[in-house]
């Protein structure tokens, strides 16, 4: 893997030489995220979000492990242990709790930007299909983990969220109700459900970490993409990951942490729902059951299907909601255009921005009460969502005339035929 001009690991420190010759772990890290990984020189700030997602995962695992030391996973004790013990008596417990709750939002925010970066710059296309496929798996795992984590405080939204989401499975014909009861370990969410959600909520982040390693491994075979979508042609097109992108990511991490800290310390409940400060009560249904903001677009798609057609409306909604994510697996084969970057694809570029707007509107609808107006807008937007991936993109990729591509990354950066200029600028510095 990697390019022939990639630097080789030569440990100078005798300790590192000793370690490296027995277990080449330092070499592995050097080649993965060190100076041994050549990266296109023209990445923009949207390429920071992979590292930021990794950071968010680490933050969630670290805060989560400490929170788990104080959490009682029982229907009788969960709410009290979080809102009583952790928030009031554990040293800096309030910080851990708010960091973990808002960390989930930051994680999903970063993931969404990362996914849309991939959609804009065609990161899912050959030879990076495997990176994309594993990425969709990670997205699904993160959504499952986030959902189960939201159940753990055992507030009203936790309980009724669990009730609604597990209720999806009862839409399956014949065996649906049986599957729902089996998943919950009872007829309604209770101790059994809470305990298994806690167990899985602790397990899945490590599965995600494993999938992230595969994601990065698959990325390192062809190497990183870039905003022009033109493949690396030679050494002048790349810079070593360290120190160039570690420095750039350091700045990105700073911005991320400022935003994250502002949420934790000044607006910790901004993205939460007040009802989750009410203990779970199976006898009182909240006026509006809404999931966390990151599920709103999918929730809007679910609620958009209100007509029975061969199968019941509820089953259509569930199929469409899961389908809206599953179809991302097929994207590399739906978009056949050989040009990756939307910068050179005028038609696709318009469709992409319509999709962004579409998903934002779906998100707004998913977070609002299901009035007829909201449902109508959701139905139109859900239709575009499916049309975009299954009809518009395949047709555009066949008909579109892409703009001329630069001959190389270096040419795109320097505005001429590149090559020698790189060495010149480097020498002057």
């Amino acid at each position: 893997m990697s390019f022939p001009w990639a630097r080789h690991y030569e440990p100078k420190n005798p300790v590192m030489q000793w370690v490296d010759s027995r277990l080449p772990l330092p070499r592995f890290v050097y080649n993965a995220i060190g100076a041994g990984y050549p990266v296109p020189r023209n990445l923009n700030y949207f390429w920071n979000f992979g590292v930021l997602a990794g950071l968010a995962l680490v933050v969630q695992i670290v805060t989560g492990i400490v929170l788990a030391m104080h959490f009682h996973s029982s229907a009788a004790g969960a709410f009290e242990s979080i809102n009583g013990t952790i928030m009031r008596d554990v040293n800096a417990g309030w910080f851990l709790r708010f960091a973990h709750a808002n960390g989930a939002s930051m994680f999903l925010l970063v993931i969404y930007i990362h996914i849309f970066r991939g959609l804009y710059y065609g990161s899912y296309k050959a030879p990076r299909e495997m990176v994309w496929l594993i990425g969709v798996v990670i997205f699904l795992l993160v959504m499952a983990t986030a959902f189960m984590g939201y159940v753990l405080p055992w507030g009203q939204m936790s309980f009724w969220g669990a009730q609604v989401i597990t209720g999806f499975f009862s839409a399956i014909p014949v065996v649906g109700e049986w599957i729902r009861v089996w998943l919950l370990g009872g007829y309604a969410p209770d101790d059994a459900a809470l305990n298994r959600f806690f167990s899985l909520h602790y397990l899945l982040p490590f599965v995600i970490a494993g999938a992230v390693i595969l994601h990065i491994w698959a990325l390192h075979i062809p190497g990183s993409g870039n905003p022009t979508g033109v493949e690396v042609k030679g050494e002048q097109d790349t810079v070593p990951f360290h120190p160039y992108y570690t420095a750039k990511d350091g700045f990105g991490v700073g911005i991320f942490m400022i935003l994250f800290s502002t949420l934790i310390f000044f607006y910790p409940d901004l993205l939460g729902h007040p009802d989750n400060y009410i203990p779970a009560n199976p006898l009182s249904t909240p006026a509006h059951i809404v999931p966390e903001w990151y599920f709103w677009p999918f929730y809007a798609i679910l609620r958009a299907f209100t007509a029975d057609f061969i199968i019941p409306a509820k089953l259509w909604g569930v199929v469409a909601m899961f389908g809206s994510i599953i179809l991302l697996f097929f994207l590399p084969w739906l978009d056949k255009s050989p040009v990756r970057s939307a910068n050179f694809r005028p038609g696709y570029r318009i469709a992409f921005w319509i999709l962004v707007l579409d998903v934002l509107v779906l998100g707004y609808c998913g977070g609002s009460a299901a009035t007829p107006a909201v449902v109508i807008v959701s139905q139109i937007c859900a239709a575009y969502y499916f049309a975009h991936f299954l009809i518009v993109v395949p047709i555009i990729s066949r008909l579109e005339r892409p703009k001329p591509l630069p001959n190389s990354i270096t040419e795109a950066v320097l505005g001429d035929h590149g090559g020698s200029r790189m060495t010149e600028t480097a020498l002057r510095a």
Partner: protein
Amino acid sequence: MLPLFTRSIKFIIGAGFIFVLLLALIGTVTTLIKEPAQPTAEEEFHKHPKELDLASNGPLGKFDNAQLQRGFLVYEKVCASCHSLNLVSFRDLQQLGYNEAEVKKIAKDWPIKQPVQDPKAGTWGERDNLASDRFPKVYYPGTGSPPDLSLIAKARHDGAAYVHSLLTGYQNQPAELLKKFPTAKTPDGSYYNPYFANLNIAMPPPLTSENQVTYSDGTRATVDQMAKDVSAFLVWTAEPTLQTRHRAGVAVVLFLLFATALAYGAYLTVWRGVKH
């Protein structure tokens, strides 16, 4: 035939979803035209809480201990007979400026006692509260179920402002409401309050007259003042660490701004002379 089918499967699936959505859309629109949504009394007469200016508001808010003590007094004399405060311990009151002896006395004199079971006889008795105890549960025999107030300022939209508006919002049911919605008359045993979600609340007006509680710091105990003070107190019970959080946040964000500026400088230095 088959290759054409496999090639167009995406269009078939896409068109399928769009067709079902179109059916749903037609259904929604017809229902909307045939049976337009009837306005309800809640929609038309429910009010958003009034603005409430508290020291703890905003990203840099602090607690005003004098106000919190007054608010605790209102809670103790008025609210506590029906509403518990089960996530708060008596010892926490020291954060409001009471000393240890005062807290012990408050706990000891608290009218609702801690239940204890005699392990030999199996019978239940009670003992005085200790500073280390949580405020005891209140068993309310009447109609309705008074919620625990520990988190009420976080468990409602607009938190403290909602509590303040609710406490001062009792009024007679407007005549125009009854004229428009004759069936929406406030039922017996309920009280009309436009700040409550369904307009009719089971709680009788708790703050009814000036000087219902006696403030020792000379503040005039008007109904509005008492409502404000107890709202401020409930912000504290919902998150006693709020002030610590704000103070830590200032230090953290200032540090991060500095560190990010350094990181930006490092980025410029590393990339100097490399066009990208």
